[in-house]
């Protein structure tokens, strides 16, 4: 999939409008300076939109396209192209393709003239959609045709590419409409636009069958997405599987299930469970010792030893880790990674100390987050007590200190089977580079997909759902694979 930087031009500068409002402009500077700061390499596709032209109906910023074409960029230019003359003006200025919106939706005869004159390879049909309805004319009125009709007409003209922008989300940083793109039935190569605000959005779009490109504007300009990193992630997206992780909550050497962290019942022998899960395709196992106190520390270590001796997949263990010595004891007992929670919130240096002593790969931050007003708060003591620390900021800080991955549990969703907290996941995955394991709320196969696709999680964890056999690991992996998400 092509990752295409998108620049909006106004008055000789790169700008962004919030929700298409000319009264709400952010200016980023002149095009050359902006391109240099974004590290856009030669040979890249570049999407430019002449905002003044889209308002007035006449090409304005052709000299910018002329200048940028000399940098070896493949430019696709758009903005208010309503006639063959407009389209020719952009091609003459050095654009490789023109992006045509209003007439593609409203005036197919003009579009046909442009395609016949320039050739179908030089035309991209741009279609703005809000709540499933095609919008034209600066987004201010509904088009005459349905989305399906517009797509069919574009395809019949021989055009190969369509840029589909979900304008209800454009610039609002809430993520693209994956469901819209997945629902399209067309042979067109689709370029997705709107709402791409994190690298995981780019990766997720790349997994949808007929999406062949995505344009990124504000997230690049704001530094939320680095172009090279996004392209590297897209290139490896099918090689690196997303992980499905069963979690064993253990108390006194037995597996139990927690509903909202209280009301616990027994559910089996940890060694037996672990072996069943590896055989079923678990990519990793997490053991959380929810009763960890000094008194039963040795019982916990013995459980870890027994489970690790029966497993050939990575084992992460957490619960009651207070000191570097607790950490070391769990690694010696056979854990590959150790999760720290309350102790790290009270003493963040513990993360750095463990990373230095045992390596970043051994350290997992376990963060229990709870909605408090308009933000998420990190909780301590198994989600029972507030720490006063912002959960998203805490995860970002833990990455700096040296944690290899974050196990992010929504205290609100845990045990509810109502789905992972996507907003929480997006808030964290948008600010850290390391992997995030989604935890709390899984109830259906779609929930696992959403945590990865929309939430940006690199792994999905569930406990009772698997213990009670309402879903198997195989069910989850089969569904994810069908949705284009790579699994092992």
């Amino acid at each position, binding site marked *: 999939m092509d990752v295409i930087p998108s620049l909006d031009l106004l008055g000789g500068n790169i700008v962004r409008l919030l929700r298409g409002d000319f009264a709400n402009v952010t200016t980023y500077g002149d095009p050359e300076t902006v391109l240099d700061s974004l590290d856009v390499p030669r040979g890249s596709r570049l999407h430019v939109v002449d905002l003044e032209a889209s308002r007035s109906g006449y090409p304005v910023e052709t000299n910018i396209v002329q200048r940028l074409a000399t940098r070896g960029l493949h430019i696709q230019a758009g903005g208010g192209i309503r006639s063959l003359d407009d389209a020719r003006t952009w091609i003459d200025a050095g654009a490789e393709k023109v992006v045509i919106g209003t007439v593609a939706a409203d005036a197919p005869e003009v579009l046909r003239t442009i395609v016949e004159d320039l050739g179908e390879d030089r035309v991209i049909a741009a279609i703005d959609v809000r709540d499933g309805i095609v919008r034209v004319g600066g987004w201010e009125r509904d088009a005459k045709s349905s989305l399906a009709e517009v797509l069919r007409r574009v395809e019949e003209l021989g055009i190969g590419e369509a840029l589909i922008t979900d304008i209800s989300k454009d610039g609002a940083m809430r993520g693209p409409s994956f469901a819209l793109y997945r629902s399209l039935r067309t042979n067109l190569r689709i370029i997705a636009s709107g709402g791409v605000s994190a690298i995981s959005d780019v990766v997720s779009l790349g997994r949808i069958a007929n999406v062949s490109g995505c344009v990124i504007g504000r997230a690049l300009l704001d530094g939320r997405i680095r172009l*090279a*990193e996004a392209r*590297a*992630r897209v*290139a*490896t997206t*099918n*090689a*690196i*599987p997303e*992980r499905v992780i069963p979690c064993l909550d253990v108390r006194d050497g037995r597996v139990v299930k927690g509903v909202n962290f209280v009301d616990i019942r027994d559910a089996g022998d940890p060694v037996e469970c672990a072996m069943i899960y*590896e055989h079923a395709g678990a*990519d990793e196992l997490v053991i959380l010792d929810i009763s960890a106190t000094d008194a039963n520390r040795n019982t916990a270590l013995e459980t870890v030893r027994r489970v*690790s*001796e029966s497993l*050939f*997949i*990575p084992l992460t263990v957490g619960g009651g880790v207070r000191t570097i010595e607790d950490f070391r004891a769990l690694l010696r007992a*056979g854990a*590959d990674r150790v999760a720290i929670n309350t102790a790290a919130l009270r003493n963040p240096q513990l993360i750095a100390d463990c990373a230095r002593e045992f*390596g*970043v*790969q051994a350290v997992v931050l376990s963060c229990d987050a709870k909605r408090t007003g308009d933000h998420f708060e990190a909780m301590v003591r198994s989600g029972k007590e507030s720490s006063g620390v912002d959960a998203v900021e805490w995860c970002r800080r833990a990455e700096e200190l040296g944690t*290899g*991955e974050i196990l992010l549990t929504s205290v609100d969703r845990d045990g509810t089977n109502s789905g992972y907290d996507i907003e929480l996941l997006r808030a964290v995955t948008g600010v850290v*580079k*390391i*992997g995030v394991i989604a935890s709390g709320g899984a109830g259906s196969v779609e929930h696992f997909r959403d945590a990865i696709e929309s939430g940006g999680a*690199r792994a999905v964890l569930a406990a009772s759902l698997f213990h009670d056999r309402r879903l198997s690991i195989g069910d989850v992996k089969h569904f994810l694979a069908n949705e284009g998400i790579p699994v*092992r």
Partner: protein
Amino acid sequence: MKTTLIDSPVANVANIARALRTAGAELEVTSDPIAIANAEKLVLPGVGSFIAAMHWLTTNGIDDAIRDAVKRGTTLLGVCVGHQLLFDISHEMGSTRGLGLVNGEVRKFDGILPVPQIGWNRVAARGPLFEGVEDGIFYFVNSYAAVNAPDETASADYGGPFTAAVQRDRVFGVQFHPEKSSAAGLRVLRNFIAWT
């Protein structure tokens, strides 16, 4: 045929030993240079720092014991940092010479993606070690790797291609952890044990 696992303090020997036994090895675990030099089949594990691992080999005469064994025709498998030790040189904080049993150099990932790599990754492999798992998915934990090594038999991609396995005559190396790679990892170990 007996398999000799080098008992290194800078490796997770217990896990590898368990995996080798599960894969059918008749196992000897030792750090005695004489036993190593006379081994029929050798496994060199390693985690953490290349420099620390190489230092342990040289100060205990195990580097020469391994070279002697290979010269006599012993089959050798290096795992993770043990795989990296097979190369000519590693550029981990300066440059350190390795055992020089396979050609190439070990370098840090360029940092486009998070380092270390922690997780499963699909390889494209060939050769006797990968029979039945030529496009297997294996578990990696590494910040360093060789790139396009001349003796490469498996490659993977992590922000760019890297060497996931090598073979030169009777010397094999795998960058991933077969002991953490479930059935695919055990298959590689079984193939190693069966290979003559």
